[in-house]
């Protein structure tokens, strides 16, 4: 399947495709050198929903997240086996270019990491390198719409030339989200996006995630059970490199099938 054609077209009304699996992973094993970080993970990620990955530190949820846009490729000793498919296409197939893949699967990191450049440049960089804008006005349009979708436009509209690093932590994280959606991905991976933020900034990001769900498939790694319960429709619980249980968020929190899940969500382990 041609990945370019599958990209979300923001200009057209969004087709609602409920319960279609955007990402399917089968028997995924990840090794760091000799150490196995993920064991036989089988997980389907529904399209246009928020899937929360929860579990204690070192359980492999971040590792799984980073497999989806092949950020683990950067680590020399990391080895991934099994299959991960995005819209039915194996993302680890030799003909897949990581650069194209990452244009389809964006990422927001734990610590806000804007480039030490202007706010405009931060958002414009992705569209520029992917050639998404043919003129300056088109680029400005993309920047504006991305910032609006990240609910940051009103706060920064009059100071787009100021460095992105000068914003507050919460604003920086929303800038990073704007930067990610400017490339028009289909999937957005969020690795503990609120762990460095105060509760008010966190609430804003959560609200934003809820809005973004209309257009994007979102995966969020979080340590906060409340956050998972608030923002996600589906939850997957990882423990010691294994996917213990996954299902609708309400089921995971109210009637977990596995004892470990129950203990974790009620705070007895973790």
């Amino acid at each position, binding site marked *: 399947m041609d990945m370019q054609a599958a990209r979300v077209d923001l200009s057209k009304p969004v087709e609602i495709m409920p319960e279609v699996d955007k990402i399917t992973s089968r028997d995924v094993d990840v090794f760091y050198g000799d150490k196995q970080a993920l064991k036989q993970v089988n997980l389907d990620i529904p399209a246009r929903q928020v899937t929360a990955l929860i579990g204690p530190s070192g359980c492999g949820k971040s590792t799984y997240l980073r497999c989806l846009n092949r950020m683990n490729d950067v680590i020399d000793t990391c080895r991934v086996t099994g299959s991960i498919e995005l819209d039915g296409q194996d993302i680890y197939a030799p003909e897949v270019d990581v650069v194209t893949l990452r244009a389809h699967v964006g990422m927001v*990191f734990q610590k806000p990491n804007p480039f*030490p450049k202007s706010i405009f440049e931060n958002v414009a*960089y*992705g569209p520029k390198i*992917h050639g998404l804008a043919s003129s300056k006005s088109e680029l400005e349009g993309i920047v504006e719409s991305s910032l609006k979708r990240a609910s940051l436009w009103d706060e920064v509209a009059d100071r787009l030339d100021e460095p992105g690093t000068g914003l507050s932590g919460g604003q920086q994280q929303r800038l990073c989200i704007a930067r*990610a959606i400017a490339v028009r991905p289909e999937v957005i991976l969020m690795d503990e996006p609120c762990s460095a933020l105060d509760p008010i900034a966190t609430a804003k990001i959560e609200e934003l995630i809820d809005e973004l769900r209309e257009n994007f498939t979102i995966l969020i790694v979080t340590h906060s059970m409340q956050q998972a319960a608030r923002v996600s429709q589906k939850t997957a619980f990882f423990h010691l490199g294994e996917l213990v249980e996954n299902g609708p968020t309400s089921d995971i929190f109210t009637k977990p099938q596995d004892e470990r899940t129950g203990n974790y969500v009620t705070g007895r382990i973790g």
Partner: protein
Amino acid sequence: MTDIASKYDPRLKSRHASEKRFKAYGILAILISLGFLALMVTTILIQGIPAFSKNYVGLTIVFDEEVINPDGDRDPAKLGSANYTKLARSALRKLFPDVKKRKERRKLNAILSSDAGYELRNMVLEDLSLIGTTKQVWLSASDEAELYFKGQISTELPEDQRKLNDIQIGWLDTLTETGVVDTRFNTPFLTSGDSREPELAGIMGAVLGSFFTLLVCFVLSFPIGTLAAIYLEEYAPKSRLNRLIEVNINNLAAVPSIVFGLLGLAILLNTFGLPRSTPLVGGMVLALMTLPTIIIASRASLRAVPPSIREAALGIGASKTQTTFHHVAPLALPGMLTGAIIGMAQALGETAPLLMIGMVAFIVDLPGGVTDAATALPVQIFLWADSPERGFAEKTSAAIIVLLIFLVIMNLAAILLRRKLETRW
């Protein structure tokens, strides 16, 4: 009630004492090193500053057409080869008409620099209307006269132990009393090339030689060094081979510089037949020496760029090369430049490798390019320090002052550059 004051007293006292003792050692160490530095700088300044002034003797010169151009045809070739020294000497003799004997006359002539004739020639060639006129002209004093004017020849020494005898000193005193001795800023020292005569020797040749050498060195070592650093830091897999390369780069930084000079002599001069004594070869040899410094500094500054920046760029689909050249390298550039400037400063002070490739020659002409024979500042210092004439002692110190000024400027530039370009995140 707890008595904080008395309970911990015995051990606290010794702890405080050892703290104070350690602070005192630290201050002492700093004072000692500062003391040595001050001693060095003061000695050099005291010895070198007189070299920045130059003594001139004012003589009433008769630009006699009979001597300069007897034929009256103003032929430049004839004008150029006329005996101008005779004009200067006869003007000097007019001031001291009693001097008759040949031997004494020669002593009298020794007051003027051997360059006096050339100074007059240049004046005439510049302005032909001078011929036939009489004019007061300031001519360079000889190095010995200059030493006396600057108070560096003591009259208390027995006559046979000094360069100037009593009669000469008498003449010099007379000149001073009649007000025809002038002290001016020594511009020729900064603008002319080397000379056998201390009063005429300048450092411009060496400065230009150093400049061309560093130019070649920078052009070679900066691109190669930074690209090597970028490859090793951003691209190279952590293999056994790359670890070996890393260790050897660090070893290379510790190789004595003369070894690089020998390498330049054997390979660049003898095998490839590049011109000897030239800034081209000097720069290539110094580039070898500077490379490890630049590579190590550049790698350190690349490593200082937070990994989150790389992740951010990779995360929105930038390729490895885009990530490196759009984000990482620009952030590391100030550090790379600082490393390069510090490497250049090291290269500027380097003497040994340049001796090996023949940049130690006595060269009067100012070099005009990288393939002209030249010498470098530290080599010039070495050459002057080795010269027997006493006048070169102050020149040596003065050249050291110039070298130190250049080094301070370069290091200052490195600091300012770092301050200005540094990005905070």
